[in-house]
């Protein structure tokens, strides 16, 4: 309140190139909204990626979303909404010169950010443990035994195995079955093997056709791969969207599930970076608030940081149903 009292004279927070606090506030706010517009466009690109991949591969999204924890995602949504409330309330407190309340509310908002990131950490950790990482780090398998180790091992093993047709026949059949048994990454790791043997019904043809390319899996894990072919077929979740593909092998995990997790990690990761940035910015305003910088005529930083925080909340409001609530 003491600050508000001498705000009548020469307000130290009013820059000389502004006529009055209101003009200064409006200008700052306009700049912030322009920045927020670019943020929307930044995420817009990722939403395009999401939309195009979902339109092309609905079965991947329906299959993969079951690995996301709807409950944790929902709790995180609620946490962000609560922290948005404390932020909006904090702006009000700053406007009214309620210094103590402002500090409490800003602290609560940061706390909300910490809770959000903590839950996010738990979720990411689960993905990590299940091998549900984007791109080449995706090692998840349906029914998940030895097959997980097979795919990475295949590439280096290809070098010392130029042996003849008789020797390669057994491993070659196992690679074909292994590749079709493990649709996602295996298909990617060894594209030649899978495209040639996608049908997997005619091992004789493929072994003779691919003497060199199909040798890779002479790794010790070859024998373990056989049972996974048998078990896999009925294991998939019900209601998978059928695409143009035919054949029983797609009733389990669809091809290229890693695409979903690439998008998932990009979108939630970029969002998490924004949460961290928001927490840092709120921390900065909290420090200024402890110095008593804000009052009825000067609360611009609180307001603008609040806008940023609300935008982060707003983006999560869309990310949550799009990623977690597919069905």
């Amino acid at each position: 309140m003491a600050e508000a009292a001498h705000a009548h004279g020469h307000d130290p927070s009013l820059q000389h190139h502004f006529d009055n606090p209101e003009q200064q506030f409006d200008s700052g706010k306009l700049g912030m909204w322009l920045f927020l517009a670019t943020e929307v466009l930044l995420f817009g690109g990722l939403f395009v990626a999401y939309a195009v991949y979902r339109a092309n591969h609905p079965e991947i999204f329906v299959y993969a979303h079951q690995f996301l924890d709807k409950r944790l995602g929902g709790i995180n949504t609620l946490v962000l909404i609560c922290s948005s409330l404390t932020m909006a309330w904090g702006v009000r407190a700053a406007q009214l010169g309620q210094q103590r309340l402002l500090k409490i509310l800003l602290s609560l908002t940061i706390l909300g950010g910490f809770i959000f990131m903590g839950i996010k950490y738990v979720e990411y950790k689960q993905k990590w443990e299940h091998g549900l990482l984007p791109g080449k780090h995706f090692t998840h398998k349906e029914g998940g035994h030895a097959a997980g180790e097979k795919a990475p091992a295949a590439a280096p093993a290809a070098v010392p195995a130029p042996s003849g047709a008789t020797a390669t026949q057994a491993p070659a059949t196992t690679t074909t079955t292994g590749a079709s048994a493990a649709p996602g990454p295996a298909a990617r790791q060894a594209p030649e093997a899978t495209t040639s043997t996608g049908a997997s019904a005619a091992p004789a043809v493929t072994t003779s056709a691919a003497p060199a390319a199909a040798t890779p899996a002479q790794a010790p894990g070859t024998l373990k791969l056989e049972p996974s072919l048998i078990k896999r077929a009925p294991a998939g979740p019900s209601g998978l969207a059928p695409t143009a593909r035919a054949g029983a092998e797609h009733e389990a995990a669809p091809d290229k599930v890693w695409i979903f997790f690439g998008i998932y990690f990009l979108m939630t990761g970029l969002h998490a970076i924004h949460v961290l940035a928001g927490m840092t910015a709120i921390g900065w305003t909290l420090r200024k608030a402890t110095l008593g910088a804000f009052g009825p005529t000067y609360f611009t930083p609180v307001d603008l940081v609040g806008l940023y925080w609300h935008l982060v909340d707003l983006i999560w409001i869309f990310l949550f149903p799009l990623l977690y609530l597919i069905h």
Partner: protein
Amino acid sequence: MAHHDHPPALQGHAHVGHVVSLRLLFAVWGALMVLTIVTVAVTYIPAQLLGPFTLWVALGIAGIKASLVALYFMHLRWDRPLNGIIMAISIAVVILFVGGALTDTAEYQGDMIPGYAPDMAGAQPKPAGAPAPAPSP
């Protein structure tokens, strides 16, 4: 401090911005919480009942929530119109972007000639080309 529900409580200070009443803030917060629970609850409706509308229901609820946040928490309702216009334009551009990309995507058919799409399982003509990559150098 409880009497500070409206700007006049500031005793004639040069006041900046609009002060949102606590009741409104909590009402918006309550609506957001309820809508979040509704979004999750909707997913328990069997997919057959909503069919292709599930996505639109989810997006519709998200849109309502986003509007609440933007209008009340972000003060757009009382702001200068320009701020809202900037936001609306950016969202419109994103919608245009997504819509354009999707219309384009829809123009590509997975298997115009059955069996010839590169990653189709059971693609017959492939085996012949398959061994080529390994001995190619």
